[in-house]
């Protein structure tokens, strides 16, 4: 961490590949807010862009990685954690951050998530949960709320919803948190905590697909959708529900949900076991 960096005010443009603008996100898409919060945290931590590796999957969430002025790896659908595992083990000096979506991380990539959590390699996994497959046109995802309409649930969704944070914690993630995009500084702080944590950090960002999911379910304007996040969150976090139309029917806890500093980071533990074996001889 460098003090000089901390003193300069955060300017998101400094961290973006401006030559790629305009970006592809729909107006009002929550993923852009999540990206801003991530870069803000990177700035506050004083992480050098040269040392930052962004590994992302396929989807609208995964596509955001390309806009970051860092070493960016846009991998395959569901597998960014697998690539990140190889990269981090090969290069412990890099700050490795994964950007993934709810479909990417919990459906096709669910196996990689639980094993990355179990291993506890020092990777921060940012899952942008918009309850839908945005990129492919709005199909149902493992986090689509009950009764919601998607292009593959024309009668309303009848499948149960994954609680990604419980899943990650159950699988052994040593840092778990959830935050909404409406509270960007709070989200930034949570991400900052996850990156600073020495071990696997899973962060679920409650994002919105305004253009497809929002329209299909008549959830109002982008602003209304984002504000409605408040009423869906844990009452003790958000007491003043200003919109009485919950975006998500279940109240979800937000903030840091698990933080275990005692379990050794996997890469360090592996390297230590090699050292121990070598000195035995």
């Amino acid at each position: 961490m460098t003090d000089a960096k901390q003193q300069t005010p955060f300017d998101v443009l400094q961290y973006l590949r401006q030559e790629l603008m305009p970006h592809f996100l729909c107006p009002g898409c929550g993923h852009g807010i999540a990206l801003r919060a991530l870069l803000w945290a990177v700035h506050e931590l004083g992480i050098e862009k040269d040392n930052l590796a962004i590994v992302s999957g396929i989807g609208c969430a995964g596509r955001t990685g390309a806009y970051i002025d860092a070493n960016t790896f846009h991998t395959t659908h569901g597998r960014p954690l697998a690539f990140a595992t190889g990269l981090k083990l090969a290069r412990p000096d890099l700050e490795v951050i994964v950007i993934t979506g709810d479909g990417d991380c919990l459906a096709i990539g669910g196996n990689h998530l639980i094993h990355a959590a179990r291993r506890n390699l020092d990777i921060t996994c940012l899952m942008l949960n918009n309850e839908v497959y945005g990129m492919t046109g709005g199909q149902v995802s493992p986090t689509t709320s009950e009764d919601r309409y998607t292009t593959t649930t024309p009668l309303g969704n009848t499948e149960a919803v994954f609680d990604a944070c419980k899943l990650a914690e159950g699988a052994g993630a040593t840092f778990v948190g959830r935050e909404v995009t409406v509270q960007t500084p709070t989200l930034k702080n949570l991400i900052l905590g996850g990156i600073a944590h020495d071990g696997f950090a899973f962060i679920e960002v409650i994002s919105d697909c305004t253009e497809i999911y929002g329209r299909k379910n008549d959830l109002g304007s982008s602003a209304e959708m984002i504000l409605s996040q408040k009423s869906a969150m844990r009452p003790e976090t958000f007491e003043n529900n200003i919109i009485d139309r919950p975006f998500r029917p279940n109240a979800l806890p937000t903030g840091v949900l698990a933080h275990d500093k005692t379990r050794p980071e996997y890469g360090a533990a592996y390297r230590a076991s090699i050292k121990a074996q070598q000195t035995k001889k």
Partner: protein
Amino acid sequence: MSKTEANANRHNVQGNHACALAAIAAGCRFYAGYPITPSSEVAERMSLELPKVGGVFIQMEDEIASMGAVLGASMGGLKAMTATSGPGFSLKQEHIGYGILAETPSVVINVMRGGPSTGMPTRPSQGDVMQARWGTHGDHTAIVLAPASVAEVYTETVRAFNLAEQLRSPVIVLFDEIIGHLVETIQLPAPESLQLIERKWADAPKEGYLPYAAGDDMIPPMPRPGDGYRSHTTGLTHDESGFPTQDPAKAEAMLARLINKVERHRDVVDAADMMATEDADILVVAYGTPARAARRAVKEAREQGIKLGLFRPITLWPFPERAFLAAAKSAKRIIVAEMNAGQLLLEIERIAGRERVSPLLRFDGEHIAPDEILDAVGKAA
């Protein structure tokens, strides 16, 4: 070198272990895999050897993850490999395609067993020859090597790493269960005697840097994360900047370069072995285990005065067509002996014409014996 010195490096080694030892000698410092018969000894040996040289071994949750981790480690700068067999090879295909498109050096070992599906896990087969060529989707190149002995597993594994590094591509090494589990006495080469190739790292100015701009050799130097290039890697069709494009001219240019870079380097990619082909009336084409039987058959046939020759591709893909045509010049009949229902056969028929070619195929989990080849020769003569 005295006799005892020469003997000092002679070891009884299993094919799968020779593969692991060669990988270490070639500079492999990362292995990710998922256990599967008959390849698991490669992983077990790597888990033992890698820590000794400061490398990393990891058993992943499946083969998809294994190949992903291999590509990730290679992007980070390490020489990396995985090993598997049929069902796992199927699972790796999407990421093999990613490695081809994003130009990520990597080595994939496939110790073939009977298929399809779970098939015959402990029986040999050569059923993955076409999957090795066309397993991943889309138009693409494939570099596939097929050793026929434990010593050759060693040399071809080293060559696989060299080709992967030089050509910035996944390279596949195919051998069957018999060779994987065969124990032969081999002379382990002194590490300093091996010619090793490292990928070219980018050292161009950072201003206006284009990560996929290639020179005459058609192979762009690779940017190493941390060196300040901050470049983008993607499985999407991209232009020289590395960013996705749908511009028809740029899309075609990318794929054409990927294909042509392998063609341009056929001198180092191609490899084949010939035996008694100069005056052969009949030519056997065989690779891997059947080639061992074919060698014996050629010897016996020649003793009987039958002019039999052997063409043994060591590089299966791209098929060493030029060497084959030279070897097949005098042959009136060509017998393709392989442990599958006719895969390389299609390529030989394409090149030599169907009327000249007879198949000798087994896909029952048994190897092809020299007598079977001699019988086929008798029928062809």
